[in-house]
C-alpha cells in the first residue's frame, strides 16, 4: 500500500482545538450589533384553514419592530426544484402542528415571545389526515390541492427489471414479510439557528446552521425576491446535521425577511421542541418484500412494495421514494427486480433526509429476509453473503456502475475475529450472533439542479508567505470535511497541514459546492481539492525547474479513460478544464517537507525549497491561484428514475453483531459489533473510525429504542424532548471492532469512498438476525423494544418447536 505523508494518517480535525476550548463560534454564538430577536408563532392544529390573523395586539406590544405573516411572501420553496411546496409562513392553510404562521421581531427575546402570544389567529380546524394508508384514498380536502389530485399521494415510483415471476420460480427458497418502521429524528445537539446581518445597501449576510449553503442561497434569493449577489450565506461551526439541516428552512426565510423589513440585524434559535416539530427525519415506512434465493445463483428475484409517510411537505421526499427501491441493487445482484414506492402527504411535520437516506429501512427488510432464506435453503448466512456480494466492475440490473468492492476479505476477517463459525447457531439460549451487509452511494452522480456545473469546485491561493488557502463551498458539519480538503492539498503540494487554511461554506468567498449530504463531500469536493492542488503543483514545479535550470516535465496529452469502470488514474490533461477523477499527478518531482526534488535526471536529488518555488512563481505574477472541479462520469440508463442512486463510487459494509436477550423481559443488549467497511483508501483513520462509531450508535438507536410518537388523533409530537425520545447512552454503545482495510478506489481522491452513512443501515438487521439466533424469533418492526421482543418470544414459544439448542426454527 502506498505510503503518503498526510493521507492515511490519523489527523485530528483542524477545528478540534478551538472546539475543545470553547472558542469555536456556532451560529448562535455570533453577536451582531443590536440584533432583533425573532419568535415564531406556530400552528396548534394539524389541519386548518386560516380565516384571519390579527397582529394589532402584537404590533402594539413593547419592543416590537415588525410582525410578518404568510402574506409577506410570494413564493414557496423546497430543496428539490420538483417539489417547492413549502411556504416560509403558512398562508391560507396549516398542514401540521408546529407550522410557522407568523413571526415577530422585537428588541428582546422575551418581548418577541410575549408579542407572538398576542397575535390572534382565527382557524377553521378540520380532521387531519394522519394515517398514510388513508392518505391514498380520495378526499375532498387534499393537503396539497395545487397538485390537482383527489388524494394525498405525493410521489409514486415504479421500476421493474428482468422477470421477477420467473426469478421466484427459480429460487430454492422464497421468503416474504411485512416490515414496519417508526418516524425518527436526527438528534443533533445544536438546535437550528440563524442570524442575519444587513448592511446599508440592504445586502444581507445569513449565518445559519445549514449543511447546504448553496441551496439555502438559491432559496433565499427566490423567496425574498432579491438577486443572489445581494445575499451571502455563511455556515459557522455546526453542531451536528445528519440530514436534519440539509433543506432550506422557514426560519431562515423569516429571519432574512425581517432583517430586510426592519433594516436591522436579526437572530433566532429554535427551541428543542421546535426542532422536533420541524422534523425532516426518517420516514415512517411499511415495506412488503419478497425475496427468492438460490444456493448457486444468489438472489433470483426481489420484489418490494413500500409506503412512506412524508408528512406535510416534499423536502427530499422524491429522492427518498426512489432510494427505498434503488438502494436494494446492492450489495448483491438482483437481476429480477420490481419495486413500487408511494410517498404520501399527511398532516404531520415533514420527513426528509436522515443518515442513510431512504436505504435504511429496505436494507433491514432485505437483510432479514436474506437471513430467513439462508435458513430455509440450509446456507450459512455469512458464507452466502460472501458468495453473492457484487464483484468489482459490474453493472447492476438498473444500471448502477459498481467499480471497487472491497468487502469480501473484510467480511472473512470479521468472521474469524468474531469466531462466527464457532458461535452461529451454537450459543446458549439468550445469546446470539447475526450478520448483515449493505452498500451506499458516495454522492449522487445526478445533481438536484439539472445543469452542467461541476458538482464541486475548489479554489486555492498561495500568497507571499507560502500559506495555502483552500476555498470550498462544502459544509464541515463535524464530519471533518475541512480537514479532508486540507489533507488532499497538503499531500499533493508537500506542505504541512499547519500551512493550510480552509475557508469553507461561505457563498461570498467560496465557489459552489452542492453541500454536505448523500456522503458526497470526500469523493467530490476531495477530488476538486486534489485537482486544484495538482494545478498549483504544476506552477510550483515549473518555477522549481527554472531555479534548477532544467526543462519542465513534459505533460503529454493523455488518452481517454481506460474503460467505463476505470476513469481515474490517468495523467491529467492540463489543457482541459477538468483533470479527471483522482488523476496520476506524478511529474518526476518529489514534493516532501517543503522541498521539491527531481527524482531523476541531471539534477536528481537537488532540492528547491517550497518558498523559493512560490516566490519564483510569483515574480511578475503575484498571488498564485488555481481551481479544481469534480464532474461525475456519464452513467445510467434512460428510463424513468434511472438517475436515482447513481453514484461514481459505492461503499460496502458488513456487520456481525452479538447480542444477549433476556427472555424474561425481552431486553436486548448488543455486546459487540465486529465488521468491515470498504471506504476505499481511508484518508484519515480517526475520521473513518469516528464515522463508523457514530453510524453504529445511530443505527442501534433505530434498532432498539428511537421513535417519534404522534398523537393518533391530533398529530402532535408526544415525545418532543431528549428525555422521551430515547437514544443510546454510553452504556448501550457496544464494543466495536470494525476493519477498514485499504481497498483503493480508482476514482475517489487518493482512492477514497464514503464512510459517513453506509454503515448505519446494516447494523440494524445484524441485530435482528442475532436476536433470532439468540431466541428464535424474527422481529419485523423497529424499534425492537423489550415489549415487542417479549411478545415475539411468547408468541413464538406457542407455535415454534425449539431445536436442539433450545432455539426456534426459521
Amino acid at each position, binding site marked *: 500500500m502506498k505510503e503518503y505523508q498526510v493521507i492515511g494518517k490519523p489527523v*485530528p*480535525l483542524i477545528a478540534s482545538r478551538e472546539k475543545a476550548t*470553547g472558542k469555536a463560534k456556532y451560529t448562535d454564538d455570533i453577536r451582531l450589533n443590536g440584533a432583533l430577536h425573532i419568535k415564531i408563532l406556530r400552528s396548534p392544529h394539524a389541519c386548518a384553514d386560516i380565516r384571519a390573523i390579527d397582529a394589532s395586539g402584537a404590533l402594539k406590544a413593547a419592543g416590537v419592530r415588525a410582525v410578518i405573516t404568510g402574506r409577506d411572501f410570494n413564493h414557496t420553496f423546497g430543496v428539490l426544484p420538483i417539489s417547492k411546496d413549502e411556504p416560509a409562513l403558512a398562508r391560507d392553510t396549516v398542514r401540521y402542528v408546529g407550522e410557522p404562521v407568523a413571526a415577530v421581531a422585537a428588541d428582546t427575546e*422575551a418581548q418577541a415571545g410575549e408579542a407572538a402570544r398576542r397575535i390572534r389567529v382565527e382557524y377553521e380546524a378540520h380532521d387531519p389526515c394522519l394515517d398514510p394508508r388513508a392518505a391514498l384514498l380520495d378526499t375532498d380536502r387534499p393537503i396539497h390541492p395545487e397538485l390537482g389530485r383527489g388524494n394525498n399521494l405525493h410521489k409514486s415510483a415504479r421500476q421493474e427489471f428482468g422477470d421477477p415471476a420467473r426469478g421466484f420460480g427459480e429460487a430454492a427458497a422464497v421468503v416474504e414479510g411485512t416490515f414496519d418502521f417508526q418516524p425518527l429524528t436526527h438528534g443533533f445537539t445544536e438546535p437550528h439557528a440563524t442570524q442575519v446581518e444587513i448592511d446599508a445597501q440592504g445586502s444581507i449576510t445569513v449565518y445559519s446552521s445549514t449543511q447546504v449553503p448553496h441551496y439555502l442561497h438559491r432559496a433565499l434569493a427566490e423567496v425574498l425576491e432579491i438577486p443572489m449577489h445581494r445575499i451571502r450565506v455563511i455556515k459557522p461551526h455546526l453542531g451536528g446535521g445528519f440530514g436534519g439541516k440539509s433543506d432550506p428552512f422557514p426560519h431562515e426565510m423569516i429571519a432574512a425577511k425581517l432583517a430586510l423589513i426592519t433594516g436591522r440585524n436579526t437572530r433566532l434559535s429554535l427551541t428543542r421542541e421546535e426542532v422536533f416539530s420541524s422534523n425532516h427525519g426518517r420516514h415512517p415506512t411499511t415495506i412488503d418484500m419478497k425475496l427468492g434465493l438460490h444456493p448457486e445463483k444468489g438472489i433470483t428475484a426481489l420484489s418490494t412494495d413500500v409506503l412512506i409517510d412524508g408528512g406535510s411537505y416534499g423536502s427530499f421526499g422524491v429522492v427518498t421514494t426512489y432510494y427505498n427501491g434503488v438502494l436494494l441493487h446492492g450489495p448483491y445482484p438482483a437481476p429480477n427486480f420490481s419495486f413500487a414506492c408511494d410517498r404520501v402527504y399527511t398532516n404531520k411535520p415533514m420527513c426528509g433526509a436522515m443518515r442513510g437516506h431512504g436505504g435504511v429501512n429496505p436494507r433491514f427488510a432485505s437483510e432479514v429476509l436474506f437471513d430467513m432464506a439462508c435458513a430455509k435453503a440450509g446456507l450459512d448466512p455469512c458464507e452466502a453473503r460472501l458468495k453473492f456480494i457484487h464483484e468489482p466492475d459490474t453493472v447492476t440490473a438498473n444500471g448502477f456502475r459498481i467499480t471497487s468492492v472491497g468487502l469480501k476479505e473484510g467480511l472473512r476477517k470479521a468472521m474469524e475475529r468474531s469466531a462466527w463459525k464457532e458461535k452461529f447457531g451454537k450459543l446458549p439460549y439468550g445469546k446470539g450472533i447475526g450478520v448483515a451487509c449493505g452498500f451506499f452511494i458516495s454522492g449522487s452522480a445526478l445533481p438536484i439542479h439539472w445543469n452542467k456545473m461541476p458538482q464541486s469546485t475548489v479554489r486555492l491561493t498561495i500568497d507571499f508567505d507560502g500559506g495555502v488557502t483552500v476555498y470550498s463551498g462544502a459544509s464541515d458539519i463535524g464530519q471533518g470535511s475541512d480537514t479532508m480538503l486540507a489533507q488532499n492539498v497538503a499531500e499533493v503540494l508537500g506542505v504541512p497541514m499547519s500551512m493550510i487554511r480552509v475557508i469553507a461554506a461561505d457563498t461570498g468567498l467560496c465557489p459552489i459546492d452542492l453541500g454536505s449530504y448523500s456522503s458526497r463531500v470526500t469523493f467530490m469536493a476531495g477530488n476538486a481539492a486534489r485537482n486544484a492542488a495538482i494545478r498549483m503543483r504544476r506552477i510550483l514545479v515549473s518555477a522549481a525547474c527554472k531555479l534548477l535550470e532544467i526543462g519542465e516535465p513534459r505533460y503529454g496529452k493523455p488518452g481517454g479513460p481506460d474503460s467505463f469502470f476505470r476513469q481515474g488514474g490517468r495523467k491529467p490533461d492540463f489543457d482541459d478544464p477538468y483533470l479527471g477523477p483522482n488523476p496520476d499527478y506524478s511529474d518526476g518531482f518529489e514534493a516532501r517537507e517543503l522541498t521539491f526534488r527531481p527524482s531523476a535526471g541531471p539534477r536528481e536529488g537537488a532540492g528547491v525549497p517550497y518558498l523559493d518555488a512560490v516566490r519564483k512563481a510569483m515574480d511578475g505574477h503575484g498571488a498564485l491561484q488555481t481551481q479544481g472541479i469534480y464532474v461525475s462520469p456519464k452513467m445510467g440508463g434512460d428510463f424513468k428514475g434511472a438517475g436515482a442512486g447513481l453514484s461514481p463510487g459505492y461503499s460496502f459494509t458488513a456487520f456481525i453483531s452479538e447480542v444477549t436477550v433476556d427472555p424474561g423481559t425481552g431486553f436486548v443488549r448488543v455486546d459487540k459489533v465486529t465488521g468491515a467497511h470498504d471506504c476505499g483508501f481511508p484518508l484519515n483513520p480517526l475520521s473513518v473510525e469516528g464515522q463508523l*462509531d457514530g453510524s453504529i450508535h445511530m443505527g442501534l438507536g433505530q434498532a432498539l429504542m428511537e421513535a417519534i410518537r404522534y398523537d393518533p388523533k391530533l398529530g402532535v409530537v408526544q415525545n418532543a424532548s431528549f428525555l422521551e425520545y430515547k437514544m443510546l447512552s*454510553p452504556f448501550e454503545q457496544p464494543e466495536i471492532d470494525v476493519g477498514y482495510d485499504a481497498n483503493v478506489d480508482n476514482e475517489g481522491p487518493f482512492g477514497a469512498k464514503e464512510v459517513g452513512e453506509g454503515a448505519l443501515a446494516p447494523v440494524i438487521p445484524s441485530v435482528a438476525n442475532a436476536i433470532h439466533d439468540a431466541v428464535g424469533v424474527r422481529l419485523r418492526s423497529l424499534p425492537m423494544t423489550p415489549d415487542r421482543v417479549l411478545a415475539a418470544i411468547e408468541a413464538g414459544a406457542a407455535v415454534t418447536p425449539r431445536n436442539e439448542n433450545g432455539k426456534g426454527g426459521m
Partner: protein
Amino acid sequence: MESGEMKLVTLHVNGRPFRRAIVPSTTLLEFLRDEIDLTGTKRGCDMGECGVCTVMLDGKPVLSCLLLAAEAEGAEVTTVEGIARGNELHPVQEALVAHGAIQCGFCTPAMVVNAVHLLERRPAPTREEVKECISGTICRCTGYTKIEKAILAAAGGDSGEGGKEA
C-alpha cells in the same frame, strides 16, 4: 424591561468577578452566554435534558440551564473557557483532540467539564466511571467511544483497569 424588575448580581466566573443587572429569571446559562459573552457553554434544550450546558459550580458539574444566575452568586463558576491555561490545553482537551473524540464539537465543552471534574476526583477511573461521568451529556456524533478512550488516555492509560481512589 422595567428597571424595577432588574436585580444586581456578581458572579465569579473563571476567576473573575462579573457584576451585571439582570432580570431575576435569567439562568446561569443565559448569564454566561448573553451577559458576559462566554459562548463556549452551549444551549441545546433549555430543559436539562441534553447536558451540553454543563459547567462547574464550586468544582461540581451542574446544568447551567436549570440554575438561576442569582443562585450562583458567591460560588466559583468554571466554564470550558476556564480550563486551558492560555494556549496550553488541559490534558483532557489534548486527549480529546488527539483521539479524534471531537466531531461537531457541540457537546465538547460539557464533556471537557465532565472529564476534568472526574479526573480531579478519580485520577485513574475505570471505563464504567468514565461512562457514568459523560452519561449526562448527549453526543450524537461519536457514539461516545472515542470520548471514553480520550478520557482514559488523559488519565494516563487506555486500559480502563484503573479504579484507584484519589
